[in-house]
């Protein structure tokens, strides 16, 4: 498997007045193509910062982020936008669907930003939402909304799926189903899936677990035999 993502000595500082907050302190790691990665850490550890940097929502203070051989840290706003459109599929804690658009329209929306032919119905079928295509987000349950969100993210066939606490707003049963779906995507379709969470149990299901604390990497574990999500004890 080839390396998809590489973080080299990444530093991110936030300035507020005279005070400088170092949210990311010399972070180094790599993620391979098709890996199912869980990034673990307590609140304030720098999980979101990492995700934002990787997702092209924010830029580094120093260091390098190399994705598919491209140096993301050098990108300007426009290039970042293109990078997000092409490489990153976002899955949010609160789904962030466009309330004005139906499920299928939310998925097919991606046609406006990437040059990919998307069959909305097929994608929705693949996340188990057959029959819900013409419903609006507000008419769907949380789990269903998150499925639409996953469908939206995978529709454009991105290099990676970035999931920020994807089950945070769901009950545990629905959460398992969603995680299951994500794991399957990784295993069957060779999609790189990166999940940011504070839920340590998920570590057992990951190919790679990156633990961060106080903006630094605490530990990187590779599971030779990850468990299935539904085999975990919740």
């Amino acid at each position: 498997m080839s390396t998809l993502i590489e973080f080299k000595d990444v530093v991110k500082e936030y300035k507020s007045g005279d005070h400088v907050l170092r949210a990311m302190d010399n972070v180094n790691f790599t993620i391979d193509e098709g890996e199912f990665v869980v990034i673990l850490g307590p609140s304030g550890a720098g999980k979101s910062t990492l995700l934002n940097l990787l997702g092209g929502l924010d830029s580094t203070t120093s260091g390098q982020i190399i994705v598919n051989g491209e140096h993301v840290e050098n990108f300007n706003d426009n290039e970042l936008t293109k990078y997000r459109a092409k490489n990153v599929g976002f899955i949010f804690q609160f789904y962030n669907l466009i309330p004005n658009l139906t499920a299928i329209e939310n998925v097919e929306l991606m046609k406006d930003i990437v040059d990919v032919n998307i069959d909305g119905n097929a994608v929705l079928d693949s996340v188990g939402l057959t029959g819900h295509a013409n419903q609006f987000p507000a008419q769907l349950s949380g789990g269903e909304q998150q499925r639409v969100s996953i469908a939206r993210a995978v529709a454009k066939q991105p290099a990676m799926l970035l999931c920020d606490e994807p089950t945070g707003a769901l009950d545990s049963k629905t959460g398992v189903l969603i995680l299951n779906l994500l794991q399957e995507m990784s295993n069957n379709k060779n999609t790189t899936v990166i999940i940011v969470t504070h839920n340590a149990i998920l570590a057992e299901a990951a190919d790679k677990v990156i633990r961060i604390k106080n903006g630094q990497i605490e530990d990187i574990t590779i599971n030779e035999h990850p468990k299935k999500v539904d085999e975990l004890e919740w």
Partner: protein
Amino acid sequence: MLRDIRNHKIQFISIFLMAFLGVYVFVGFGAESFGFEETANQYYGETNLADGWIYTSNLDDDFVDKVNNLSLTKDSERQLAVNSIADFDNDPDITLHFLEDDDISQFYLVKGEEFNLSDGDGVWLDTRFAEAKNLSVGDNISFTFEGITIEKEIKGLGYSPEHLYQTSDSSMIPDYTKMGFAYLSYKAFPLSDVPYNVLLVKYDGNSSAYEKQLDDDLTRDYSTFMPRAQHPSYAEFQDETEQHQMMTDVIPVIFIVIAMLTLLTTMTRIINNQRTQIGILKALGFKNRTIMFHYISYGFWMVLAGSILGLILGPLTLPPIMFDEMADLYSIPYWLTGFNISFIIVTVLMVVLAALISYFACRNIVNESPSSAIRPKVPKVSTSGFLEKLGLWKKFSFNVRWNYRDAKRNKFRALMSIFGVLACTLIIVASFGCMDGFDEMKEWSYEDINHYSSKLVLEDNVTSSQIDYIVDDVDGEKLMESAIEIKSDDVKKSGVVTVLDDNDLYTPTDDEKNPLEISESEVSLSKKMAQLLDVKEGDTVKWHIMGSDKWVNTTVDKIHSDPTSQGIIISKEKLDDLGLNYTTTSVISSNDVYENYTGVKTVFSMDSLTDSWDDMMESSMTVIYLLAGFASLLSVIVLYNLGLLSFTEIKREFATLKVLGFKSSQLRKLLLTQNLWFTTIGFVIGVPLGREVLQYLWGTMGDSFYLNAHISLKTLIITFLITYVISILVNLMFSGKIKKLNMVESLKDNE
């Protein structure tokens, strides 16, 4: 509280501005238009302007007694009013008033000594004329009339309520170097027996009741009775007042309504956006009352401050601009800024409504339990409508779908935006339409109907051989235009009779401005006059020429249209048939005439006529520019404000779209599309409505004007440009915001 205001700086500024602008325009224009009325009322009251004037040549004591014996007569006073030429190079026309008494239509003194009846050596002169001629108290001046020359000492300078608006035969608009008036005692008249020719009367009741009494008891032993409404100076000022009222009545009201509506929308939304915070305050244990007080006082102070500032600044700044324009046209000693109770009512209404709307918006949230208030309101569920069911829907881009649904979900906001654009379009169309109308009238009147190069106005006593000589010399045509009174069953109006004598340089027109053939035996009535008298073709009207008491009945054979002169057009032959005297009043010619002929009072060139017209319209232009300017400003505020509100609401969606990889330009286009939709709808509805308003305005413009409202292509383009430029400009203001939109933060501060 202060922190809240800082955080919502722009919204509070716009609330303040809307309240201010609404009240400012409403009260400012109101103060000006009511000011006209108040000025007139006070000035006429102070100088005790006559209620009516009875003109007759036999004004002996016996006649005066008869009039005084009428039950309705309160007071009367004799005068000799005579035209004279003052001794200056340009032969200015001065109307001399020899007074028997000085209670009615008093001279309003500004300099020198009070008018003195027993002073036979003094003259009290028109101060505007004195200014123009550099005359002052103590100077001597001489006048010539009916072959008599008198020389008097100027004892005082001032104004006359009968000469508020002055024009002479030599000038269509007031030119104080060419005309004026003077008041003298009867003792100043060179003969002991003053041949009084006008009786000023004050009476009870209305003019028609009084005229009836005059007719009944005096058996029409006089030539003309002129009530105030027909007095040229009084009527002109009245017309001007109405002209201003027409523009300032309708439009500022539209203004205040838009201001109020947007204000209310904004305030409701600001409070709704504070929902979560209200919930937190409740959860923390603040009393409902405390929370309500906080949020109501919120917008309340802004509205109060804005309204009061508008209430104060409106009357202080707008009327002076207008009065300055008017001062050239009207000789009046002072201008009052009007006041009307509606000013206060509107201001109070504005403030009270603002407080009420905040109260209700707030109460709805406060009355919820803290646990539900702390959560954001459940978004409204979109539903598929009929448009989505069409196959066509699938072909629409995301842009179209998103905007359509967004508008559908926020119907009120959409309606408000449309309404804002609509009202602004309407005001701009109506304002510039007025300008078009003035141009149209000018063209119609001075190109289509009157297409001579020169008009020679003849003196009253000119002989027919003199006329023939002039006609021959300038290769001209004879024309008779005389003032008439015209009656249908129950309406009486004054107008003009135009008598044609094979004229080529004067062409009556129909409603389409095409030449209208009026045969020798026909009588044609102007359309506006027909409307005023409520008659149509085939009906009979009764009329007489001013100065003669011979009334004739004629059938209306045709209806012609004229933008500036209302009355009757007949042929010389028909006039003879009716037994009326033909008197040539002017000679018109296609040549430029520079020579001075005996018997000619004045020569008008077509250029001077159109120049005068332009001057006359200038004061209206000021109103138009002001209104159009304010309308544009208001639409910027309304659109920006609504844009800002919707932007706060869709910020999260936009942040999401941006995260997903949408370019800022795509998002900007999304907002622009919506703006353009609303602008287009507002524009498309606003233009025809503006035309309706314009039509209404022309209708109220005064009896002598007639015009159908047209919107010229130019106006349409100007309005289009203004409206769309504003719309796009406002959109540009948001492009920076989209660019700066912090994706991370927008996603975090979530529900």
